[in-house]
């Protein structure tokens, strides 16, 4: 196996050496693969980091699922790995349980589904799909990855310290997170968490600024906003969300750092802990929650929108049909983006916030269901009367739509403050957000990888393994999260090490179901090995990809199979049409790429499109200006 890979590497590097002969300036190994400014390389760096993080985050969840599913099981066999985190009775340490829950959340939300998803595909697709040679600033883009890397190293190292990583839940509510005496994880582990997140936010902002600048300024000639693929629209809205909300998390984190280390009282008031009355008065723990969720809620959409955007593209391509309601899709994403900023307090209905505010936020929250519903209906209508090609990417996209619906509908329940009273912080919430944001976004990530792998690595992934991976994951995800609703309706609170204290034999009633969920989780997690193998094997040994393997319309497929830094060897193609001309009546092929002018497709032009022919000259006339912008 290892020899196979090393030979593959040799072949691979050889290929690259060959390619480099065409380049004007040779870059060394370090500038090409490590400190690269090429958006494609940075995207791959994000992707591989994200995949590694996903396995770490996933394995943590398996550990705590073992505790929940098999509360009697001896964990002695994990002692070689976990050491002192297995207590004397051979069980998981109770604080370590909370640490794993916390780190699972942090890793999955930020490191996998924000950096791994947005970082990968915004970087990879924005320049390729808008027709740009690279990001607006390749250097800042490179810094963005390396800040993320630094943040990753710090977060990863916190898993190994003696007092354990941060343990107060991924939301790290103070005072628990502010007081090292409250739990060991609030000591050095929390300091590292905050440091890591600070770098993460810096990285996110650098990335986001780049995405926005590139989309606004570097679109190729003819690429008007209404001709942009929905992927680009979704990355644009995601970047706007991140740019406006991450700084608020930074301020929340900074104030927490002040409270922890410099004796301020932003979040602390009237605390008596471990036999000691602290001097802090006048702070508000609720303030932190407002600041946190001002990011935390948009974060849900930061995670979800790119997945929805890519799904739009993949579903249209593989249905061989235009996406239904292109403008409505943009409009609903715009609506979601705007509303995302004014719904945060629905996470706080029962935190002691003024109930009047609760009413306001319930109203705003339920409005956001409308654009979400529109999106779901539009996906379904896109499938209607299509000619569906079930590539692995398409399967994952359909899976995403199903998960988005299934997880989304329970949001209507939870967004209702009166109903949230009983369901808040129960497994109902866990089931809801894992389906709608966790699994749905993860499916988007997988769909994206399968769809754009040929463009990333110039090779194809094995489709059959892709199908098996999909079916295991899809069935598995539902088996894990669907029964969780029941446990939530039965009132089981989340972040419980065990449910004995609920009394009345209620724990016994769900012992089987918890075991079932854990087994399903283990199967689902193990099935990801199929993906990992397929992914890494195909990078080196996959079949060489054709130029446009999915017969897609967007610009990235007009580049060479292995695009160099700069993406197009010659002029950047111009864009004359929207990206969804699939199965157009009259056209000989069932797709017309965006760079094909209307004058070349007289037989299939709609009546109003013939007027576009006159404008083609204007678009061509912009070539000089466009080239100018790349010569400094």
């Amino acid at each position, binding site marked *: 196996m290892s020899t196979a890979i090393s030979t593959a590497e040799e072949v691979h590097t050889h290929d690259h050496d060959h390619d480099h002969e065409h380049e004007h300036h040779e870059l060394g190994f370090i500038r090409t693969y490590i400190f690269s400014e090429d958006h494609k390389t940075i995207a791959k760096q994000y992707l591989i980091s994200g995949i590694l993080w996903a396995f770490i985050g996933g394995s943590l969840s398996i550990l705590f699922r073992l505790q929940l599913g098999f509360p009697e099981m001896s964990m002695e066999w994990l002692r070689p790995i976990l050491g002192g985190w297995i207590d004397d009775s051979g069980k998981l340490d109770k604080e370590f349980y909370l640490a794993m829950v916390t780190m699972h959340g942090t890793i999955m939300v930020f490191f996998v589904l924000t950096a791994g998803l947005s970082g990968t595909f915004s970087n990879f697709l924005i320049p390729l799909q808008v027709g740009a040679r690279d990001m607006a600033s390749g250097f800042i883009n490179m810094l963005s990855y390396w800040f993320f890397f630094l943040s990753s190293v710090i977060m990863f190292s916190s898993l190994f310290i003696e007092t354990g990583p941060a343990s107060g839940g991924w939301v790290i509510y103070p005072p628990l997170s502010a007081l090292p005496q409250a739990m060991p994880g609030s000591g050095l582990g929390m300091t590292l968490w905050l440091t890591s997140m600070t770098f993460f936010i810096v990285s996110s902002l650098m990335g986001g600024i780049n995405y926005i600048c590139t989309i606004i300024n570097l679109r190729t000639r003819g690429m008007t906003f209404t001709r942009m693929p929905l992927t680009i629209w979704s990355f644009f809205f995601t970047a706007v969300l991140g740019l406006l909300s991450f700084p608020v998390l930074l301020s929340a984190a900074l104030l927490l750092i002040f409270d922890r280390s410099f004796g301020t009282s932003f979040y602390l008031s009237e605390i008596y802990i471990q036999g000691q009355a602290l001097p802090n008065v006048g702070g508000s723990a609720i303030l932190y929650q407002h600041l946190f969720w001002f990011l935390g809620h948009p974060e849900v959409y930061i995670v979800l929108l790119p997945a929805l955007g890519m799904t739009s593209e993949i579903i249209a391509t593989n249905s061989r*049909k235009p996406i239904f309601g292109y403008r409505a899709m943009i409009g609903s994403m715009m609506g979601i983006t705007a509303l995302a900023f004014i719904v945060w307090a629905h996470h706080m209905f029962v935190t002691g916030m003024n109930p009047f505010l609760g009413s306001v936020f319930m109203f705003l929250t339920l409005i956001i269901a409308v654009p979400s519903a529109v999106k779901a209906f539009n996906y379904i209508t896109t499938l209607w009367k299509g000619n569906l090609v079930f590539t692995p990417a398409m399967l994952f996209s359909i899976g995403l739509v199903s998960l988005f619906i299934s997880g989304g509908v329970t949001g209507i*329940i939870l967004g209702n403050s009166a109903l949230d009273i009983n369901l808040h912080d129960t497994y109902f919430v866990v089931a809801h957000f894992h389906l709608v944001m966790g699994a749905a976004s993860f499916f988007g990530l997988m769909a994206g990888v399968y769809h754009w792998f040929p463009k990333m690595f110039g090779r194809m992934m094995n489709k059959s393994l892709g199908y098996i991976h999909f079916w295991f994951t899809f*069935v598995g995800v539902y088996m894990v999260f669907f029964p969780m609703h029941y446990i939530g309706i039965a009132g089981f609170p989340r972040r419980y090490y065990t449910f004995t204290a609920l*009394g009345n034999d209620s724990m016994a009633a769900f012992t089987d179901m918890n075991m079932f969920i854990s087994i399903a989780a283990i199967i689902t997690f193990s099935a990801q090995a199929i993906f990992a193998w397929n992914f890494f094997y195909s990078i080196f040994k996959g079949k060489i990809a054709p130029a446009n393997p999915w017969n897609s319309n967007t610009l990235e497929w007009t580049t060479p199979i292995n695009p160099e830094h700069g993406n197009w060897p010659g002029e950047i193609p111009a864009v004359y049409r929207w990206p969804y001309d699939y199965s157009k009546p009259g056209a000989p092929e069932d797709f017309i790429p965006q760079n094909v002018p209307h004058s070349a497709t007289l037989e299939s032009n709609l009546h109003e499109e013939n007027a576009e022919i006159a404008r083609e000259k204007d678009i061509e006339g912009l070539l000089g200006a466009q080239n100018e912008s790349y010569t400094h």
Partner: protein
Amino acid sequence: MNYLIGLLAIVFFFLAVSVIAKSVKLNNKLSGTEEDDSTVDNFNNANGIGMLIFWLLFVILGSWSFLHARPDFLPIAASEHGVKTDNMFWTSMAVVTFAFFISNTLLFYFAYKYRFNKNRKATFYPVNHKLELVWTVIPAIVMAVLVFTGWRTWRDITSQAPSNAAVIELTGHQFGWYVRYAGVDDGQLGNVNYKLIDETNSLGIDFTDKSSFDDFTATELHLPKGQPVLLKIRAQDVLHSVYLPFHRVKMDAVPGMPTKFWFIPTISTDEMRAKLGKPDFNFKVNCTEVCGRGHFGMSITVFVDEPEDYKKWVAEQKPFLATNPAYLDKVPTNLKSKASKYIPIEPIATDSTEAVSVN
């Protein structure tokens, strides 16, 4: 029984895999060659049919597992507002399950129906404003109705507590709940100050406030059935959250910011035991905001008593000052006479409190 779901699921896995494998073999035999280069491969039909099979099995297993889990859901709400929110929950659930069912059915059915066929061309159907308007307006109307009913219920639940409410203070700490009653004489809780907390006075009761003289503490929560109860909620160290699952009550406990929740318990402990046929059933207070190592175990027992039993129980409780006369020193001199009437002349009998609990 859950093993059965697991078993069925595993069977389904292998069925799916074998169906796929078989259809590939068949296709390979039919076409004779591997059509690797075309975008549509031999699995396409299997995947399309798989979508429909998946959904059918999902609906069957989903409905079955729901019916199976249903007896283990929380029993009928034991509070007035809880019955309302439960009804609303199940109504909303019906609405969203309908939406969930319809849209998923269409999704999977279309995936099956419109799987690739090389003799067919997809319909170029980019937009239909009327259709889009319909499915924007319908969810909007449904949402509006849900919001309105939800808002009315929420408004009632969070309204001012009636003035005759029994005032009870719950204070969360790592890892347990302190209970303090307002006492029989003035019905008002005295002030607390976290700086006054010591070994005995674990709540930091402030004895310069005369309302605190008759306050008494308890290790379990007793509630009067059919009467409004106002919980005044505090936390001493980190966030906690008061959760009475059977009463559908939840409210965070925040250090430095007292919170509250009022409700009317409607079913006594005895009635609930009879109803459920579980003679050892007890209502509980649990914690639902992660608070550290002992978070999961932070629970105390709740007794909902008939009003007269409740009155009797309250009357038998001794004020904190009575059980801890040393704290008379903390009372300012002008209030000493008022406070000292709570100090028993003879030593208190230690067994008097035990006899009345409803165990």
